[in-house]
């Protein structure tokens, strides 16, 4: 009963926050990017809570439950993911997106590479795989509610999907960011609380390792149970990289760079993200290991965390965990749906079908997509539910392989052109799909994500030579986005006291450039 009360209070709170911030959306930029006013704390937590989906409570713990310490390749990469993402793309993408006047990550690529085809292919890849990703979240919500409330899976799924969709359509980007911020706090508190309880049950990390060692010593190996991946460095590197650099290719995550208050926001946000990650990311993987010791006969490994909460720590901890899991699912699902809807409305509907579409019409198109994904997700999940781990890693990997190279090249290489970017996008996506469908990681010992990334980068280098250089205007914009690099010898003599004058003169020169 307490689970249901806490859950309802939590939902009411999130709906209120969503409603409160949705009233501030006045322009299209407000609706899609929160008016580019998001500060460092909210940027960090919305980015991290969006990045950490229901996967962290289902797929991650299931991985360590099945493979032991092997799962920590994924966890270690994930801890650094936020920092890498903000440090490499943050400032530059914020600057360039504003210079180009882009409101969605796909529009940004189109304007940067001066190519309509990028919009068509990028939108297609984004909408399909963001939808796959969100279906993983639907399944996770159904499974969680089923375990913690005892309702049948179909009923739990309907309630879970209904809540996510109802809550997502209630507000725009600003509402999503602020609800994510509070959900990020709930996630870290819930997960860390359960971790402490779990570790105290098994005698800390030492007691846990002793127990695992007695059951099967290979649980303690970094190469998987039964040394399944023994010395397969291609798999290990792929597992490490997928979450360390993969976030740079996710449209619903990189849009956070575009909505920051200023390029400087990235630096402080990176610090907050890293602190949050250190507290949060390892916890579910350790809980998976605790599950091996406390629930060795569990049938569905993805249920290890809810089962631990329900059976081992009933009552308030179970309720806390339910809200934390739903927070993770909802904070990711709302961003995925928001992004997929924005891309459909702005980059497809407005760009190709109705250039003069009003904001109301675009919001309607966006909501149609949310509804369609919901219906399709329910049908798929009821008929043949895939594993959360499988669908999330597949969708994540394909999005990452499609967009990482074009996003990085966009701000680091002014001569990056449309031919190179298109080749990188298409080859990366196709390689990941083929590798996953054919289970080629088994025969090649190379993770699908790593394979896609390598092919994408190689295709970019080769095909970029065949394309024409971008226009001078774009080259200048990229150079401006890179910022001024001051040589070391000059940097040491800079007079810090002149910073206000330098800022004012920079503004004067910009204004002079506009009026000239």
């Amino acid at each position, binding site marked *: 009963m307490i689970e249901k009360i806490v859950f309802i209070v939590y939902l009411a709170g999130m709906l209120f926050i969503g409603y409160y911030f949705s009233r501030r959306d006045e322009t299209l930029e407000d609706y899609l990017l929160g008016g580019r006013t998001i500060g460092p704390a909210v940027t960090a937590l919305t980015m991290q809570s969006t990045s950490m989906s229901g996967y962290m409570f289902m797929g991650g713990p299931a991985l360590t439950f099945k493979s032991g310490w092997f799962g920590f390749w994924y966890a270690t990469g994930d801890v650094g993911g936020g920092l890498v993402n903000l440090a490499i793309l943050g400032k530059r993408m914020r600057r360039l997106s504003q210079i180009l006047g882009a409101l969605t990550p796909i529009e940004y690529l189109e304007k940067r590479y001066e190519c309509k085809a990028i919009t068509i292919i990028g939108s297609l890849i984004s909408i399909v795989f963001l939808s796959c990703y969100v279906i993983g979240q639907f399944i996770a919500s159904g499974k969680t509610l089923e375990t913690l409330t005892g309702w049948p899976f179909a009923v739990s799924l309907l309630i879970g999907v209904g809540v996510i969709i109802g809550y997502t359509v209630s507000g725009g980007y600003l509402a999503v960011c602020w609800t994510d911020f509070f959900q990020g706090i709930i996630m870290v508190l819930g997960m860390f609380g359960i971790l402490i309880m779990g570790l105290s049950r098994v005698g800390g990390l030492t007691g846990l390792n002793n127990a695992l060692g007695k059951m099967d010593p290979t649980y303690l190996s970094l190469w998987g149970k039964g040394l399944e991946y023994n010395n397969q460095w291609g798999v290990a590197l792929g597992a490490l990289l997928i979450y360390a650099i993969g976030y740079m290719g996710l449209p619903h995550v990189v849009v956070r760079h575009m909505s920051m208050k200023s390029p400087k926001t990235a630096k402080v946000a990176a610090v907050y993200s890293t602190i949050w990650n250190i507290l949060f990311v390892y916890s579910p993987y350790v809980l998976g290991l605790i599950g091996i010791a406390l629930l060795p006969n569990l049938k569905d490994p993805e249920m290890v965390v809810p089962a631990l909460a329900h059976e081992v720590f009933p009552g308030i901890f179970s309720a806390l965990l339910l809200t934390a899991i739903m927070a993770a699912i909802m904070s990711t699902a709302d961003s995925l749906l928001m992004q997929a809807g924005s891309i459909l409305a702005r980059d497809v509907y407005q760009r190709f079908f109705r250039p003069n579409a009003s904001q109301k019409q675009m919001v309607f198109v966006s909501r149609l997509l949310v509804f369609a994904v919901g219906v399709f997700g329910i049908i798929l999940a009821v008929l043949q539910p895939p594993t959360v781990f499988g669908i999330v890693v597949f969708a994540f990997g394909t999005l990452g392989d499609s967009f990482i190279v074009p996003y990085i090249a966009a701000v680091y290489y002014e001569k990056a052109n449309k031919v190179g970017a298109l080749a990188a996008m298409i080859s990366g996506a196709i390689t990941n799909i083929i590798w996953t469908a054919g289970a080629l990681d088994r025969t090649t010992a190379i993770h699908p994500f790593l394979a896609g990334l390598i092919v994408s980068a190689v295709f970019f280098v080769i095909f970029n030579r065949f394309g024409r250089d971008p226009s001078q205007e774009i080259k200048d914009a990229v150079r401006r986005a890179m910022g001024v690099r001051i040589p070391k010898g000059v940097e040491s003599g800079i007079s810090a006291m002149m910073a206000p004058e330098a800022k*004012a*003169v920079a503004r004067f020169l910009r204004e002079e450039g506009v009026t000239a």
Partner: protein
Amino acid sequence: MTPSLEVSIPPKCFLLKPLIREVDATCSLEERYPGVTQVSARLIYYPYFGFPVAIGSPRGSRPSPLSGLFCSEDTGVPERISIIVDLLEGQAAVTDITREQLEAFGPDPLPHLPFALTVPAREGFPPGKVLDARITMDDANKTALTFLTFIATKSRRLRRCASEVTLGAPVLILKPFWIMEIQSHPDNSKMLVDAVSGGYHPILT
């Protein structure tokens, strides 16, 4: 001790003479910057309000010795300092340039100079645009008074030794800066050089 303010409108104007010539600034940057191919310079005048500050000693008591900005080194007697307010960014700072020292530059060379004007060339003063002020005189007055209240409250020495702190009528100070455009490999950049002190800072456009 509550600082008070005298206001007189319109303020007198003082144009500071560029002590760093274009050729000096150019040579200096060419020496420092690796890979530089060309440097071009342009002069601007940056507007500030300078508010002289009078610090009074406690009446009927011997003034305690002060040090640093707040006194003359020889006598330890409180003397005048100034607060300057940047008319573009609205930031305030304390400086030891007093009105008397400003007068030494040549009193009132351009009386009641309006903004958005180019200072014409004449001996010792190259021509240069005066940047438009972005804050009003009222706002500058408030900023100076707030800043003075802050330093008067924070400085234990000033609190102990001064009975009265008065903000005088502002004067307009136009300070010259060189905007240097540096063409170099692999990046071009801009640098702001203080034409009075020679300090520099990158301009991040």
